[in-house]
């Protein structure tokens, strides 16, 4: 008989301190991002970009712009260039220059913010790992652990996208702000002392099912953030295209984001990429339920909402595949689907009791 190890107090303590430290660093990253946005708002480049946006949308529809993609580097200079041409009829607007608006100072603060975010990520990851070590099990036994892991994975995915040279720096401020909120909620309301699991959670499926669930959630979150920004940027572009004049603040912010088309595509790619993993998560959960409770599907509230989330994302992917439901409607579906995910995480745990025994906060 194996008696589960008692929680290691000093490691648990260290874990808490690391989480607090990461919150402090994220706060600095938040300030650095704000500075970046402020410097960027004074930029000439941004204003040029805005002018460009305006002229593009004015004439855009009939003559799609063509982007020239050189194969960079001197060694390959004589290789043929590939020319791309976007689908006729789409609003052809170039991406904004980013929060820094092309200013050197703004960019410097942006880089500082990203470095701080990376540091915060390392601290938070340390917090999650020491928490796991303190209990000698996967650190996903209750909502506090779930929340800190969620925030850490979301930031990790963002940093990984940056490392892959994807154009995602525009996400920084939004992400850092919400991650701070999430950690704040976790440490203030959801905090649970480090401890062992009830027997129903003793299973290697915990590692598989819960880790993929958190990962999918964090990635869906980034997809949803893309969809939200898409909606804002799209109304901004639509207003411009319709001859309207958005307010100065809105212009200053919006013109620096990527184009609505880019944001839309970003959000789609993220959601589509993680959908098969989410499918797997639900199936892994069903297998675990089969082992633990003798039925693989029993319409427990948690199961219901996982199903609703899955169907909602399937709906979104379908919407993208059919003509009439692209753009805003599809984005609303994506947000509905993500709202289901979040509800499944907070709402179901707190308000609806079911068999999922960690449902206690």
């Amino acid at each position, binding site marked *: 008989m194996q008696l589960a190890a008692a929680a290691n107090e000093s490691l648990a303590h260290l874990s808490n301190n690391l989480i607090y430290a990461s919150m402090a660093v994220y706060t600095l990253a938040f300030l650095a991002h704000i500075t970046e946005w402020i410097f960027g708002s004074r930029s000439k480049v941004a204003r040029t970009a805005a002018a460009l946006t305006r002229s593009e949308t004015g004439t855009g529809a009939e003559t799609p*712009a063509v982007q020239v993609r050189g194969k*960079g580097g001197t060694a390959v200079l004589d290789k043929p260039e590939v020319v791309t041409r*976007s689908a006729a009829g789409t609003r052809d607007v170039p991406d904004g220059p980013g929060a820094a608006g092309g200013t050197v100072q703004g960019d410097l603060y942006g880089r500082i913010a990203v470095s701080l975010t990376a540091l915060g990520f390392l601290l938070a990851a340390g917090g999650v790992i020491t928490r796991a070590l303190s209990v000698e099990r996967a650190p996903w036994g209750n909502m506090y652990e779930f929340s800190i892991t969620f925030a850490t994975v979301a930031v990790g995915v963002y940093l990984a996208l940056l490392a892959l040279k994807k154009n995602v720096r525009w996400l920084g401020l939004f992400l850092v702000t919400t991650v701070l909120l999430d950690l704040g909620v976790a440490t203030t309301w959801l905090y649970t002392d480090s*401890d062992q699991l009830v027997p129903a959670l*003793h299973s290697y499926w915990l590692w598989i099912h819960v880790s993929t669930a958190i990962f999918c959630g964090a990635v869906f979150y980034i997809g949803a953030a893309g969809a939200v920004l898409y909606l804002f940027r799209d109304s901004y572009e639509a207003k411009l295209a319709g001859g309207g004049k958005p307010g100065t603040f809105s212009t200053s912010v919006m013109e620096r984001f990527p184009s609505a088309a880019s944001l839309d595509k970003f959000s789609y790619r993220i959601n589509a990429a993680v959908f098969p993993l989410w499918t797997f998560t639900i199936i892994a959960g*069903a297998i675990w339920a089969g082992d633990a409770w003798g039925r*693989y599907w029993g319409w427990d509230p948690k199961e219901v909402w996982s199903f*609703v989330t899955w169907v909602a994302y399937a*709906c979104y992917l379908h919407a993208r595949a059919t*003509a009439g439901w692209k753009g805003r409607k599809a984005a609303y579906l994506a947000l509905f689907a993500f709202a289901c995910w979040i509800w499944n995480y907070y709402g179901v745990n707190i308000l609806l009791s079911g068999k999922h025994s960690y449902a206690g906060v």
Partner: protein
Amino acid sequence: MSTSDKASTEAPHDSEDSASAEASAEASAEAAAGAQLSTAPLEDAPGGPVGIGVFGWARWFWRQLTSMRVALILLFLLSLASIPGSLIPQNQVDLMKVAAWKKEHASWVGVAEKLQLFDVYSSVWFSAIYLLLFISLIGCILPRSWQFVGQLRGRPPAAPRRLDRMPAYTTWRTDTSPDEVLSYAGTLLGGRRFRTEGGPGSVSAEKGYLREAGNLVFHVALIVMLIAFAWGQYFKSEGGKLVLRGKGFSNTLTQYDDFKSGALFDSDDLPPFSFTLDKFDATFERTGPQKGTPREFKAYVTFTNGAHGTPQKREIQVNEPLEVDGSKVYLLGHGYAPVISVTDPTGKVIFKDAVPMLPQDGNLTSTGAVKVTDGYKDKDGKATQLGFAAMFVPTFAGAGEGTMFSQFPELDFPALALNAWHGSLGVDSGLPQNVYQLDTSKMEQFKTEDGKPLAKRMLPGESMELPGGQGTVKFEGIERWATFSITQQPGSGLALGGAAAAIAGLAGSLFIQRRRIWVRAAAGKDGVTVVEMAGLGRSESAKLPEELAALSGALHAQAPTAGPGPAPVPGPLAEAPSAEAPPAEAPPANERAEVEGERA
């Protein structure tokens, strides 16, 4: 967003359609280039039925049902329709909660029952949605599979006249002859597992058919999973059994405490096996804020498969059921059973048994009833029945407070309290009896000399005298019991297979991009060969230009740019700054997983 132009990247997939469409010759050539790049149906305009009478309507209805628009609506409805089942307790999940809800919301019960809100997942409306969805799915898959087979047999379409109108395009001039360029191109594309087709002065190539296959596999797998689910519902069986330590169970219908089964289940399907519970271990948190929460449950059993199998030792834990012949034995719960003996007025032991008590809280404060149905005669020799209402605590607390409760779930300080009754237990009345409760309606309580009801709290080994020398009740010791659930759920293997196929198909459908590449080479006026390459995918994926760059780079290595001469001017070039950095290096050109961009 603005309207999408089908002609550019999502052409009508039927060449007849595109021919009939009034479009310029050029547009239709472009349309042909993009034709049959997928098997997704076109959206038909939401018009009324064509033709007259029942047949026309039926056709219209079928068309609507199998359209993508309706599939989308049904899918959305399915997600909305599953929600109420998580907010209102379900019969299928927890009958007790349903009863509690009904009590709390008495005025709603009528409406809720009419709407089948306590049985959402088997309700008429929920079933209607998913059945329609699956009919739609079948109606969608059949023609698409057929079309896909046709596409597999077909060849990549000829190069459109103006390659520079394709989403990705490149061109250069070379001294290599057109024929050589084309032969190089054919080898190059073929080597990268493109399906190639030579045409006059051009080569067409296509790749990524697995995307379509994956999509079809995914949708078929959904049907397989539904069938598996239905199969499981009809043939499943589920029964519960409480087993005392040292006692056994054999898998026949009569041995179960409770049993539920699907409509088509046959009790002959129960596999013949038996087991005895040798030992049961439970450990609990001893310290800290979560003191008393369970840490580990383990049942040690001796298990015999079949009527004449050899007994084997096995362990059953919460997440580790025992699997036999398509049945699984799960450990569900556990508790204590005080061993009680009853002696009649003559001093003869007429009852000695371990009596399971039902846990009431996390610390296993338990209640139950001891029923002595026969064998007892009172002092006057009259046969009667005895009943004892019992309360058992593994770790006694509450001394001096007049109550009794348990402080910890393990046997640190066990105590048993009894109330004694005599009369008729009512077991012969034909009404179902709760084994844990005493029906005292036809019984009388034993009284002490001063007229108070007889009750006593005992430690193990202690006994209670019934007044007037009517006998003795002794608390002999404590046994443990565990409850098991024995389930059979056929079709779960099929469901798992379907699920695995669904994920594989989905990955293929989402990560593989179907695309076409064309190469054209022709001698220019000055005798130098002009090479043109273009790519078209089902979507504006960023990967397509990268792939074209890699392919053109490879072809360019074999057919390098001709010496000095006017630089070729590709198509109608406008200079617009691109915010995206140019791709730093060529991507690996073999088939790679990639996330598809938006469609058309």
